[in-house]
């Protein structure tokens, strides 16, 4: 086929090029966003590591109860919500709309429970005297590092839970399709993936000896 045939629209189907990497455009956009967001979180965690490593009196205040127990529960809830999201996407791909909406809403509920546990933990730390520029234990940047990283993650979880409710409702109403559910699922798995790094670096490296 000549170049002129293509430009003259002789074979319209051929003019449609396959999307880059044989991946739908919306999914590619979500992956690009995930890569950028991963770089953001990595930057925050690496900067946190620089501060912690450079400080001679970085506090290690997290006791098993309630902090580490709470972190265990939050981790379990988030990993399980990733599973329920995957089950929702599978159901959507197989055309089972009711099951898909159910799993999506369960996932959103998991995210909201995670957020509530996290906020409760924050209030506990604030009550103990931890702030952005002060704490009763050591280096004043401990609070800033903790609240900024966990706060950024909490923001992602909350926004993700809201997005899941909206996507689930619109999918159930026929306004979105299974591909949209899959793309939202990618975001939710990413949020879980970030938590897998936040827990060891921010919580577990600072457990009380």
């Amino acid at each position, binding site marked *: 086929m000549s170049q002129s045939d293509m430009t003259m629209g002789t074979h319209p*189907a051929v003019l*449609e090029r*396959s*999307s*880059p*990497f*044989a*991946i*739908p*455009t919306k*999914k590619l956009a979500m*992956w690009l966003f995930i*890569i950028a967001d*991963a*770089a953001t979180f*990595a*930057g925050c965690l*690496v*900067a946190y*590591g*620089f*501060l912690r*490593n*450079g*400080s*001679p009196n*970085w506090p*290690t205040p997290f006791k098993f109860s309630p902090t*580490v127990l709470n972190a*265990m529960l939050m*981790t*379990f809830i988030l*990993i*399980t919500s*990733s*599973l329920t*999201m*995957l*089950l929702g*996407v*599978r159901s959507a*791909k*197989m055309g089972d709309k009711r099951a898909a909406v159910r799993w999506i809403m369960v996932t959103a509920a998991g995210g909201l429970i995670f957020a509530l546990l996290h906020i409760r933990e924050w209030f506990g730390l604030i009550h103990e005297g931890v702030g952005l520029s002060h704490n009763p234990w050591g280096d004043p940047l401990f609070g800033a590092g903790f609240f900024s990283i966990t706060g950024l993650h909490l923001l992602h979880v909350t926004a993700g839970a809201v997005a899941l409710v909206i996507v689930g409702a619109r999918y159930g109403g026929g306004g979105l399709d299974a*591909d949209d559910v*899959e793309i939202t699922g*990618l975001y939710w*798995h*990413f949020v*879980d*993936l970030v938590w*897998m*790094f936040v*827990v*060891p*670096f921010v919580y*577990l*490296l600072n*457990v009380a*000896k």
Partner: protein
Amino acid sequence: MGPTKLQRGRAADYSGSLAKVLIIYGCIVLLAALQFIVAYQHLGGRATFLRMFLIAIVEAGLAVTFFMHMGSEDRKFAYSVAILVIFVLAVMQFGWTDSFRMERGVPGSTYSSGPTQ
């Protein structure tokens, strides 16, 4: 007539068995539990960090490959994402020399020398 498969792009395969999904989920939960165990082994800062980091990498690999279905996407795409992400993470590590300098208290540093926690 809707777009062709070529036009839509190949979709990731979600038709695998449920048992496989549950096994991967179990592995991720166990790896997360392992991180908590490592935290209480009191091995020392560097050894603890390295073990937790390796466990987190394996967890992330399982999540990306099976939960996010990168394993069933186009290979060129998967390699492009992996290379880009690893490159960005690698170039972020420029500041470790400065943080070690602050820790050891060379002249001009505002921190006193001493071991890391």
